[in-house]
């Protein structure tokens, strides 16, 4: 992030330029005259000054002279001019730290002068981001964006459901950003807290409430005031703590552990679980009344294999990030992207990100070719695949079909081997395949 001083007397231009530069991730201060610019420079140092050539109280060139004398730190200056003819005049001035732009400006011009190193990559990533954090253009993601947009306008509690690694916290961040609420996003993992501490974490405690409570502590509900509270792995919350949570959700008031006073709280609760609705109903890990309070608006986040079209986009984005951080210029080849797309990624986006990171570490930093490992499989991947394939509520026919499909895949389509593995005759296998129709060649 750069500290940028924008000096121009055209208020409308500075208004819009301010928003754009801020969006590009920089801190901006604005001055409408040389006098105001001098005032800023008295108190602060800037990395970059965007300076109008003609100001009401003199030429921007005066400021450049003064800067040479007053600052020890290297400040980059971009003169903005409406006169292309000034170009020639400025050529003599254009040392390594001074350049110029001619109006009308474009965002790309500003990006280029502010971020001379990696402008292309930055642009690519920022273009692909939805709600400032989500990547993907596939149909399931478009549906998700629509839901985020709709629910962000309300204050309804949201329950995010999806497999592990699909990016539930990122979606919570997207809902928070799209809500444009004043307060912060506070995240807590209900599965990571001990039974004894969860009450204190959620609702806070008073000094001396229990051994070790040496001071007063605000709970996450209080800390998320006017913002969003993200309760990850909410189904891991002990059942006996859930009535307390229900009370807060219903009354919008908390009582700190060891306290007597009720405190008003106002935040949207976004909770997350990797269990499906069926699992929730069967396993009884979440009280029904709590579920209905939390899941006013349930959102199913698609797994990565349900949005394979997004894999190249994600892989590019992750690699760009690593390139930017490390000053490298690795790029994917088409066959590599095809390989990434062909894999099922049972660990979802998290697994893909880690695979890209692993490949990045293993690649020769002097080259621009990235080396993918021969196999992406991880010990957890196979577990999650098998547990996801069979879940309560599926018909026996579907499970059988899935089993036959997976077995055939494993033995590269050999029906004899598949029948042997399944413990049935080849004839029976053929009959089953014929009955399903889908597998017919």
């Amino acid at each position, binding site marked *: 992030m750069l500290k940028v001083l924008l000096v121009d007397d*055209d208020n*409308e*231009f500075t208004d*819009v*330029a301010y*928003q*754009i530069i801020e*969006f590009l991730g920089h801190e901006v201060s604005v001055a409408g005259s040389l006098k105001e610019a001098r005032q800023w420079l008295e108190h602060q140092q800037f990395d970059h000054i965007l300076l109008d050539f003609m100001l009401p109280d003199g030429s921007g060139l005066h400021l450049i002279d003064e800067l040479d004398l007053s600052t020890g730190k290297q400040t980059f200056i971009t003169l903005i001019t*409406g*006169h292309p*003819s000034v170009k020639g005049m400025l050529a003599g001035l254009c040392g390594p730290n001074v350049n110029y732009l*001619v*109006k*009308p*400006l*474009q*965002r790309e011009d500003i990006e280029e002068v502010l971020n001379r190193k990696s402008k292309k990559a930055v642009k690519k990533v*920022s*273009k692909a*981001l*939805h*709600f*400032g954090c989500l990547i993907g253009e596939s149909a399931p993601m478009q549906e998700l*964006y629509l839901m985020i*947009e709709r629910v962000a306008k309300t204050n309804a509690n949201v329950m995010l459901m999806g497999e592990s690694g699909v990016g539930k916290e990122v979606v919570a961040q997207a809902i928070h950003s*799209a809500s*444009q609420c004043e307060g912060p996003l506070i995240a807590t993992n209900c599965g990571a807290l001990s039974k004894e501490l969860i009450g204190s974490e959620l609702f806070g405690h008073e000094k001396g409430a229990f051994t070790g409570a040496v001071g007063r502590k605000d709970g996450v509900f209080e800390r998320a005031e006017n913002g969003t509270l993200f309760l990850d792995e909410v189904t891991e919350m002990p059942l006996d703590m859930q009535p307390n949570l229900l009370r807060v959700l219903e009354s919008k008031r908390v009582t700190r552990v060891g306290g007597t006073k009720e405190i008003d709280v106002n935040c949207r609760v976004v909770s997350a679980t990797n269990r499906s609705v069926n699992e929730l109903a069967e396993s009884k890990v979440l009280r029904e009344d709590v579920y209905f309070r939390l899941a006013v608006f349930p959102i199913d986040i698609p797994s990565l294999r349900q949005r394979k079209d997004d894999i190249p986009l994600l892989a590019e984005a992750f690699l760009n990030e690593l390139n930017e951080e490390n000053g490298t210029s690795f790029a994917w080849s088409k066959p590599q992207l095809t390989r990434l797309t062909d894999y099922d990624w049972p660990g979802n986006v998290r697994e893909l990100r880690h695979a890209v990171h692993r490949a990045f570490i293993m690649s020769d930093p002097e080259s621009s070719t990235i080396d993918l490992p021969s196999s992406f499989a991880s010990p957890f991947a196979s577990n999650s695949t098998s547990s996801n394939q069979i879940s309560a509520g599926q018909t026996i026919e579907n499970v059988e079909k899935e089993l036959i499909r997976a077995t055939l895949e494993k033995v590269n389509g050999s029906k004899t081997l598949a029948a042997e593995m399944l413990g049935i005759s080849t004839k029976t296998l053929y009959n089953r395949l014929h009955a399903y129709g889908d597998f017919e060649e």
Partner: protein
Amino acid sequence: MTIERNQNNDIRTLVHDARGPLNRISMNAELVKLVLENDLPREKAVDALSKIIAACQDCSDKLQMISDSQKDNNH
């Protein structure tokens, strides 16, 4: 010779002035793009578009001034 130079300077100043609204149009259009690409609040885009429309009118007035000054010079 001096009159001609003054006329040229006047035109240059008018052209310079016309770049002001053009610059506002360009930057506000960039803002609309940002809003659409990043799902930012719609109001920002509507506001930027209103500014573009106003700047178009401003630019048109300034171009008219250039045209008028040319006519005056010819007379």
